[in-house]
């Protein structure tokens, strides 16, 4: 009897380009961060030019504030607030002038960058002595036109030839007027498709993917920033005031070097996408591989040369072409770049907006505005990459761990925060910022990764193309906007609590007022997670849009737990929490005084929050990879049902008044506390990420949730009764 022949498993080729590249977001962040250096330069120029006038205005305003609203008792917080109110109103005009200087600095970089961008094509043509291809090469021009039409470019780039020493091919120019530079050695052999077509397709892919404007814009603003960041040095020299120069110079130098490296790194990532795009266009990746292996430079030098190169090594490019599943959505370095740029941009933008919006109704919304401006770009730079990775893993069956992305993003945030480019470390002492940055940053990345997994599980039900990924972009934009809002707002809350000498119990009780906005934060991720849990139920083969040709297969998607059992487990846990708080009321009787009432309110908050957190924790542990998203679906109902169940039982079973405002306040407090705790717990999902199992029966999850909820409620309430 013949032995069965062992066959190698087919490694499917994911269509990496089905989702947008996260490098687009990184380029946008980079440009925005470069513009933000103009804000700092503007401030310093203002201080150099109008510093004396501002100081006079400040002195006058302090005197006015002391006169109108004196602080007689330094411990009187209300008096301090009133004093500060008068001071800020008085200083607003002078501050607005400073803000306009900031904006002028950013606008100057933008305008100069635009000029550089517009002048660059002519400069490149002159410097590299590029010339039009003559009529003898009309055949090559015609072939480029054919290939451009295949790629879907409305207007083919114009062919230029370089000097005899021109050996590389590249594209440059402005949208609508692109140029393709090819080595003469390639152009004269245009009939040989073995070299000509793959190289031209690669360059056309750069055009199709808008790499030229992104890369050149990033380079242009970098160059444009140089003269603007020199301006403060000039004003310092004129005034012979060098007090801030050292602090300014090292930060700017660090920033410019990091930006330069990030641009290079982003360009390397784009090369893989251009290679894959070109291979997909031609329907075969092997000709391009052949060109790479025979007609490219042997990779120069050591790690540093590779680190600063615009191109990945030939080995890396061939590896990705051979197996597109090797493309990484977000590496440590990608996360680091995204975090750093975000941390530089947020405070710079916030500082300017605060001044501009002072004494307007929009002032209180400054953190929201900044988060909504920067969040989408950060979401595109990091979150979209994680969703892309989830899609790739859906095809390859891998379980790429997002720990590197988490670590990189948080480290980037901290480095950016430490550089303190917005105020040269002269700002307030935000000692709560660092822990909040860590929690919010890691939470955003993990929420994105978890929801991305659920989304990928439902890939077979998605139409593909922009109709699929726009929602991913919106979800990630909001997740990161939420994280950035938290990173700005929570330190203020904690600082205020510190000034007011709040204890943890005070903070918990007042959380409904202080951080009630957080209630809305998890809503969209919950809705997306819930919808995806429904859509992933049907077993379907991998969709064609997710594959780069070849055979299809049944995806290794998780289908369990379903939405119904997940919700049921959460609701049951909430009911148990409500019963637990009611049990305490039965055991302890009616409250005797206000202190007792406050203590019981705190117990309600703690019991329900801990139960909801326990439910989310169990979900994260039991459901690998997507547990970070499913935990929202189980925890939020537990928190809401526990809260409303407790207030309802308190009103209907014990005859207390029905105060819907109180019901809402308590629910918002519980949800806010639960979600903050949830962000702290999210890193647990990293520990179980590599677990091999996929499906977790819904009944099992619900049962575990009920058991854990019962244990937690019993412990908290039992302890409270015992300590009474």
């Amino acid at each position, binding site marked *: 009897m013949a032995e069965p022949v062992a066959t190698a498993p087919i490694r499917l080729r994911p269509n990496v380009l089905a989702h947008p590249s996260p490098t687009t977001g990184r380029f946008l962040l980079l440009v925005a961060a470069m513009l933000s250096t103009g804000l700092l330069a503007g401030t310093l120029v203002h201080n150099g030019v109008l510093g004396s006038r501002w100081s006079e205005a400040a002195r006058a305003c302090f005197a006015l504030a002391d006169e109108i609203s004196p602080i007689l008792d330094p411990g009187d917080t209300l008096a301090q607030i009133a004093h500060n109110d008068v001071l800020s109103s008085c200083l607003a005009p002078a501050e607005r002038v400073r803000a306009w200087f900031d904006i002028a600095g950013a606008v100057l970089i933008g305008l100069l960058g635009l000029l550089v961008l517009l002048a660059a094509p002519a400069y490149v043509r002159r410097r590299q002595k590029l010339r039009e291809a003559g009529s003898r090469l009309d055949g090559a021009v015609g072939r480029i036109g054919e290939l451009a039409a295949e790629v879907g470019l409305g207007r083919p780039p114009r062919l230029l030839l370089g000097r005899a020493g021109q050996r590389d*091919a590249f594209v440059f120019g402005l949208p609508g007027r692109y140029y393709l530079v090819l080595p003469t050695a390639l152009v004269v052999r245009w009939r040989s498709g073995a070299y000509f077509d793959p190289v031209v397709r690669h360059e056309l892919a750069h055009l199709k993917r808008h790499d030229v404007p992104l890369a050149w814009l990033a380079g242009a603003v970098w160059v444009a920033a140089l003269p603007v960041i020199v301006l403060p040095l000039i004003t310092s020299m004129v005034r012979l005031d060098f007090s801030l120069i050292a602090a300014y110079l090292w930060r700017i130098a660090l920033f410019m070097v990091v930006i330069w490296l990030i641009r290079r790194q982003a360009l390397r990532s784009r090369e893989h996408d251009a290679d894959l795009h070109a291979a997909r266009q031609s329907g075969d990746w092997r000709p391009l591989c052949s060109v790479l292996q025979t007609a490219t430079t042997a990779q120069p030098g050591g790690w540093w040369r590779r680190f600063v190169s615009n191109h990945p090594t030939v080995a890396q490019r061939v590896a990705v072409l051979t197996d597109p599943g090797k493309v990484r959505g977000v590496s440590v370095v990608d996360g680091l770049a995204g975090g750093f740029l975000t941390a530089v941009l947020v405070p710079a933008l916030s500082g300017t907006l605060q001044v501009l919006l002072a004494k307007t109704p929009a002032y209180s919304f400054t953190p929201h505005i900044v988060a909504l401006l920067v969040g989408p770009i950060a979401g595109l730079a990091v979150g979209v990459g994680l969703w892309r990775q989830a899609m790739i893993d859906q095809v390859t069956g891998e379980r790429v761990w997002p720990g590197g992305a988490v670590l990189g993003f948080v480290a980037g945030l901290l480095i950016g925060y430490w550089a303190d480019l917005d105020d040269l470390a002269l700002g307030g002492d935000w000692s709560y910022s660092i822990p909040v940055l860590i929690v919010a940053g890691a939470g955003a990345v993990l929420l994105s990764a978890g929801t991305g997994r659920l989304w990928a599980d439902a890939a077979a039900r998605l139409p593909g193309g922009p109709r699929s990924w726009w929602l991913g972009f919106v979800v990630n934009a909001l997740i990161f906007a939420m994280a950035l809002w938290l990173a700005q707002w929570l330190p203020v809350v904690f600082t205020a609590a510190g000034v007011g000498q709040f204890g943890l119990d005070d903070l918990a009780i007042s959380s409904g007022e202080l951080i009630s906005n957080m209630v809305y934060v998890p809503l969209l991720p919950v809705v997306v997670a819930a919808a995806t849990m429904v859509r992933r139920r049907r077993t379907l083969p991998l969709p064609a849009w997710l594959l780069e040709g070849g055979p299809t297969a049944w995806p290794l998607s998780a289908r369990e737990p379903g939405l119904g059992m997940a919700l049921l487990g959460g609701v049951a846990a909430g009911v148990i929490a409500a019963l637990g708080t009611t049990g305490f009321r039965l055991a302890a009787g009616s409250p005797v005084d206000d202190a007792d009432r406050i203590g019981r309110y705190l117990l309600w908050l703690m019991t329900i929050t801990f139960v909801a957190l326990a439910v989310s924790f169990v979900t994260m542990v039991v459901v690998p990879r997507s547990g970070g998203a499913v935990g929202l679906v189980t925890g939020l109902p537990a928190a809401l049902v526990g809260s409303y169940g407790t207030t309802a039982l308190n009103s209907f079973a014990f005859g207390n008044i029905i105060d819907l405002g109180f019901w809402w306040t308590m629910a918002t407090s519980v949800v806010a506390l639960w979600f903050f705790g949830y962000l702290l717990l999210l890193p647990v999902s990293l520990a179980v990420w590599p677990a091999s199992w996929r499906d977790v029966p819904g009944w099992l999850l619900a049962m575990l949730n009920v058991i854990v909820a019962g244990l937690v409620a019993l412990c908290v309430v039992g302890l409270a009764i015992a300590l009474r």
Partner: protein
Amino acid sequence: MIAELTELALTTAAPDELLVFEETAHEYFADPQAALTAAQKDNAVGFGLELAMITPVALAVGTAVAQAILAAVGERVVAASGRGATALLKRLLRKGPQPQGWQQGAYPQGSQPQVPQQGAYPQGSQPQPQGPQQRPDDLALSPQQARYVRQVALDRARALGMPEGQANLLADSFVGAIVTTG
């Protein structure tokens, strides 16, 4: 002159490049070093390609070959005819040598005639044209001289970093150009 010789060699070594030979030769003679040096590499949104033209290297090789030919036959012929070097080379290319057994296509791939080893001819000690078939007024290269010219071409091509296969093809093309012209 050198351009003429190189153009002939390129008809075998890189016929595609003849399309742009004129402007490339012009660029080479204006600044040989620039034409031979790779332009800026690692362009943003580039390919990372390293595809060099053969023509500039061929022109550099052609220069060396021309000098070698002159060294080999020039002294004798100048003495005999009083012509200048350029005229001599032009004549050489126009007439071409007809040594025994050296016909067009006499170098099938992989069966090149035996060439002297690299370094076999120290500078200033080129082989003197000797032999019973040579007449004092004959400008044709002897087989030994042709081998020498080939070796010069090969050495120059190698020195300029040309891959071995291409360097051999180019050297053969030069000798072929000299041998078969006319």
